[in-house]
């Protein structure tokens, strides 16, 4: 087996091991980054929703109290404000969703659908506490949800949601007396649910992986080519010439020209040794002839 072939076999083996190890590590890192990014996006979106709710409660609601005597303004309701603000975001990020999913909502659009109701019930029966993260499939692709329970800890909420008689009349005018009543203090009535698409982050991770691995393969290929060239110029070619010269000498061509090696290394030493050997042989032959 030729030296160059041996070298390339070893090189390819090392190359494959390197690519495999790098690929595995980078894939794991990029996938974890994608998962973290999706979770972070969901948490940020939830933080925005919480901030909007707080702003509405502290600053908007007091300003609208007088108007609310005459007509119900959902803009004063924290849940409505948060939903509206984050719905605006969907114009730019259509697969991002925020919903205050309630089992018994005043506004029908807040009614929890099946999977949302499952989340709310997990909070209600204690299976989940604080926060809940999960992934589900949607027609638009995979989506990660991040949910927090909506529990009645402010008795002011019960003004609108305890009984029909206690509720503001303009609210009844707008939404009717059928829904959104019977809530109790400390009861978990729903959940804030943020849904963030995972596909985008994972597509980005995949693209980064392909780019990284492609670059790595290209670098290895260039390095391999360069090493082959180097090996051929520095070892294979001079050794082949020296070998040919040795063959001619062994066949009696003692006048064959020496191999010229410019480098100052072991190959040159070998060439010089062969040249001395040839001269010694030529001298020995002359002595024998005389």
């Amino acid at each position, binding site marked *: 087996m030729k030296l160059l072939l041996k070298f390339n076999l070893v090189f390819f083996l090392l190359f494959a091991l390197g690519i495999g190890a790098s690929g595995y590590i980078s894939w794991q890192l990029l996938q974890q980054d994608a998962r973290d990014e999706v979770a972070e996006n969901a948490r940020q979106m939830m933080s925005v929703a919480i901030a909007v709710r707080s702003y509405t409660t502290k600053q908007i609601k007091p*300003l609208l*109290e*007088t*108007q609310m*005597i*005459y*007509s119900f303004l959902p803009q004063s309701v924290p849940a409505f404000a948060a939903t509206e603000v984050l719905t605006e975001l969907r114009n730019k990020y259509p697969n991002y969703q925020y919903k205050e999913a309630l089992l018994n909502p005043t506004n029908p659009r807040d009614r929890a659908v099946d999977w949302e109701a499952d989340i709310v019930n997990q909070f209600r029966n204690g299976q989940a506490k604080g926060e809940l993260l999960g992934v589900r499939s949607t027609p638009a692709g995979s989506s990660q949800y991040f949910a927090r329970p909506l529990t009645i800890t402010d008795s002011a909420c019960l003004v609108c949601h305890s009984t029909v008689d206690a509720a503001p*009349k303009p609210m009844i005018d707008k939404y009717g007396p059928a829904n959104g009543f019977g809530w109790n203090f400390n009861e978990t009535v729903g959940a804030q649910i943020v849904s963030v698409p995972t596909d985008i982050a994972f597509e980005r991770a995949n693209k980064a992986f392909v780019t990284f691995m492609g670059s790595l393969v290209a670098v290895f290929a260039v390095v391999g080519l360069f090493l082959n060239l180097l090996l051929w110029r520095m070892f294979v070619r001079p050794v082949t010439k020296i070998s040919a010269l040795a063959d001619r000498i062994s066949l009696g061509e003692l006048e064959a020209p020496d191999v010229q090696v410019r480098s100052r290394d072991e190959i040159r030493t070998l060439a010089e040794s062969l040249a001395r050997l040839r001269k010694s042989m030529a001298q020995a032959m002359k002595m024998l002839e005389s």
Partner: protein
Amino acid sequence: MFSCVIALGLFAGIRTAGAAKLTAIVTILQGSATVIRAVSEFGALEGVRLLPDDLIRTDKDTFLRIEYEDETWIELGPETQLELGHPTDKRANRPALYLLTGWLKLGCAKSDSGAKNSLASTGMDLSDLSGTLIIRTTDSTHMIFAEQGTARWIDRAPHATGSVTLNRGEFLVTGEGKSPKLQSRPAPDFVSSLPFAFRDSLPIRYALFAQRNVVAKDPRALAYSDAEPWIDAEPSIRRQFVVLWRRKATEDQAFRASLDRNLPLHPEWRRVLHPEDYDADGTLIRND
């Protein structure tokens, strides 16, 4: 020259008001409004001081807010006519604040002295006022909404003894010859026609204008057309104007002629315009 006299009169009025216990200030004016003070009138401006007994008229699409130092405030809607007085003041044993017509929203300050707030309008008084109240008065109907507080409606018709207490959120519709109708909620037509600014709780702005000396806009002599709604108001309110404008009626021929032309609507002016119709004892001797 005449304008200078009016301006001096207005200035003197303001100086007098400075000594008064309660001076009102126009703190918001959207649109235009006219203030009648004694025998002159001027255009309202934000920051203008108003005095007890000033007559205020807002024009179409106008919103005007008046505030007192004690944080009592009065808001007027479009096409409203009001005789100004602090809601705790009385005049001849009736409320000093009188709404002739239009929209009024009153915010009563919490009184440390326990003085009760009240106001009057054609044929009725509202007493024991607290919180925020809205009244709409037309020729034939009063609509009263106790937005945040309470009120007691008193019928001033002769021999009437009726009164109705309005609690927070209750709505009363009354009118001449109609029995009062108390509702748990304001009527939809009342809500739909409510001046939009009445729907908001506005911040107190008295301090913003308290140190400013805003000069009245366009002072001029009182015109009969501006005084007419008051001259022809219900007897209990219009009698005061005979005293107030007696001199003008004798000196201003155009004013006098207008008064004389409509004398059947305000017969109390006959003694001023035609003293020859009465004998020395004040008995009417000519009845033509």
